[in-house]
């Protein structure tokens, strides 16, 4: 369904918000502009973090954070910037060795606010057991940025035995999910004015590397890991299905959608499958270790609600299908563009 030649909109020659939403538009931008410009082929798997060339088991990842507002229920831009990069490393089976932190602040940002989010970043790094070893601070004039942007880069080392990659999922794999979905996106949204809903939803932002380490005993049987941030679970599953060339089948009845998230999504017309998360991951593991892996995840507080949501199949390769509550099937498509801007 995606072999269309895009209609040549003349308006398309500027960057749109949807290009940053983690869905189909983002993929297009990467494939057609970013990767070719950097001399990379556009068809390899795109992972959350890369193996350092010549670096043995060293993994690198970088991420910028532009969430608005800076503070939201359950976290803030500081803790998010640490967790985001720690988690991207973890999705390649790596534990963080060190982080860098770069600040871009807008003229006029109260110092108290800067201190509060940096304190929070410091605390998050400490809790994740990773030092922040270097950084950078830039200030731009009023209007040249929106209050505060952060960038973190992380270096990690892979846990011996773990070598997950989005290209390694294979037919028969069990698909596990480490926790409930939809919390982060709806928590940030609930802080925006005038949305007409109040909830006690808090972001799930948290480091996931310890939970990944819990999978170390299963070594090579852990095929793929992905944390469904922008674009939500729908994007993550589609990326793995595409990179690995497998079909993914999930059951709607197995999806852990907290009732407050479901209610907020109903109200706003959103699909919980495409809402961003910051504290859970999907794991594609060999079927014979699936039950043991689930138990291992559940033994940790951040994985207490881990569930099995589906499996991989040779049918419908590179596509994700969902069995609805009533037993019908539908395709879960890659989200197309802008859903909720500035949530991470």
């Amino acid at each position, binding site marked *: 369904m995606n072999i269309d030649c895009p209609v040549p909109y003349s308006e398309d020659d500027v960057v*749109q918000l*949807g290009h940053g939403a983690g869905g189909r538009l983002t993929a297009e931008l990467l494939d057609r502009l970013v990767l070719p410009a950097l001399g990379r082929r556009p068809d390899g798997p795109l992972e959350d973090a890369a193996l350092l060339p010549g670096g043995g088991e060293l993994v690198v990842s970088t991420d910028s954070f532009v969430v608005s507002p800076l503070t939201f229920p359950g976290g803030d831009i500081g803790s998010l910037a640490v967790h985001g990069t720690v988690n991207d490393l973890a999705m390649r089976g790596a534990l963080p060795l060190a982080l860098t932190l770069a600040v871009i602040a807008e003229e006029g940002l109260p110092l108290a606010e800067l201190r509060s989010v940096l304190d929070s970043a410091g605390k998050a790094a400490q809790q994740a057991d990773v030092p922040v070893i270097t950084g950078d601070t830039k200030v731009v004039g009023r209007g040249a940025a929106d209050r505060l942007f952060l960038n973190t880069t992380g270096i990690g080392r892979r846990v011996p035995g773990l070598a997950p990659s989005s290209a390694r999922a294979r037919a028969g794999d069990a698909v596990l999910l480490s926790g409930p979905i939809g919390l982060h996106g709806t928590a940030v949204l609930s802080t925006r004015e005038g949305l007409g809903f109040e909830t006690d939803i808090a972001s799930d932002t948290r480091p996931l590397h310890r939970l990944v380490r819990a999978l170390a005993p299963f070594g090579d049987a852990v095929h793929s890991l992905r944390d469904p941030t922008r674009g939500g679970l729908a994007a993550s599953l589609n990326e793995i299905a595409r990179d690995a060339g497998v079909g993914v089948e999930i059951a709607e*009845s197995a999806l852990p959608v907290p009732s407050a998230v479901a209610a907020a999504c109903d109200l*706003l*017309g959103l699909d919980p499958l495409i809402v961003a998360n910051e504290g859970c991951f999907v794991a594609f593991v060999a079927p014979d270790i699936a039950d043991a892996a689930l138990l291992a995840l559940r033994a940790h507080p951040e994985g207490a609600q881990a569930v099995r949501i589906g499996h991989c199949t040779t049918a419908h390769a590179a596509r994700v299908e969902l069995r609805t509550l009533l037993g019908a*099937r*539908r395709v879960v498509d890659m989200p197309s563009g802008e859903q909720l801007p500035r949530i991470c």
Partner: protein
Amino acid sequence: MKYLDEYRDPALGRELLGRLARTASRPWRIMEVCGGQTHTLVRQGIDELLPAGIRMIHGPGCPVCVTPLETLDRAMAVAARPGVTFTSFGDMLRVPGSTTDLLALRARGADVRVVYSPMEAVRIAEENPDREVVFLAVGFETTAPANAMTVLHAARLGLANFSLLVSHVLVPPAMTALLEDPDCEVEAFLAAGHVCAVMGWREYEPIAERYQVPVVVTGFEPLDLLEGILMAVVQLEEGRYDVENQYARAVRRRGNDEAQLALARVFRVTDRAWRGIGTLPAGGLELAPEYAAFDAVRRFEVGAQHSVEDPDCIAGAILTGARLPTDCRAYGIRCTPRTPLGAPMVSSEGTCAAFHAAGRTGSTP
């Protein structure tokens, strides 16, 4: 707020499907009027689980889809003006006009903002007295009362920099128009629960009587729809044509008095073009003369537009249920959610988008 698990229970769903299969003695064609219902039907695959012979015809009830291209072109013309802050529900932003869409205008510097409630637009107007704030007021009887209230509120505040670009539509005239069409295949209607929560169902009684067609006021959850379909089939089998209410937890016969009062004060009924269907007599709402000062069309003099539809788009036939998206030669090829040619592909409630999101292809029944 409680999540409506009880309206999504698979066991109850199977039971309702079983009862449907036992009740239906022959094929029946039922139209769900509302796009939200289309969305649930397709997302849950309910239309494919129905007993053979019971066919759902997807109706014209997606507010984004029926908004005329001319209104969209007016919206672009207003939004492109310097000094204008243009506000709208998110769905409308991606709908292509004749030459551009609001997102593209925004990327080029226009001040276009997504709001989740029209009151937010009033607040923006209050806080930015030097900006002209315009809200795109589209949709059915469901969104109209809130928009009416914003006008009353803005009038009370004496806001001179707030206006509405109005293209409201009304459901009963559209049902009548469909039934008047000699090719109409619809044998029963599921009326949209949220429209009836505002308007009640008195308006549907003369329609049911005159055209001898059962109407069941129905909710949006999977089990609501299954129950609504079952109630319609029972009526059809028994030869009855009553207005019945499946959605009793939210709807009463007379509707919501307060909302109706606000509507009556701020708007008046007018002939209205429905995209793909044509102009329906008394088919929509416009601002009443007392509130003409809040009319963006007048304020910005954007009445006349040269709007041209894409020649391949069969949105009209889709909206009336005459054709399926998979019948459209552009579906999934030139027309995708990423590059929509017509409104039914843009709105998540649009039939084309619902089909595309569910991965339906031509081979799917």
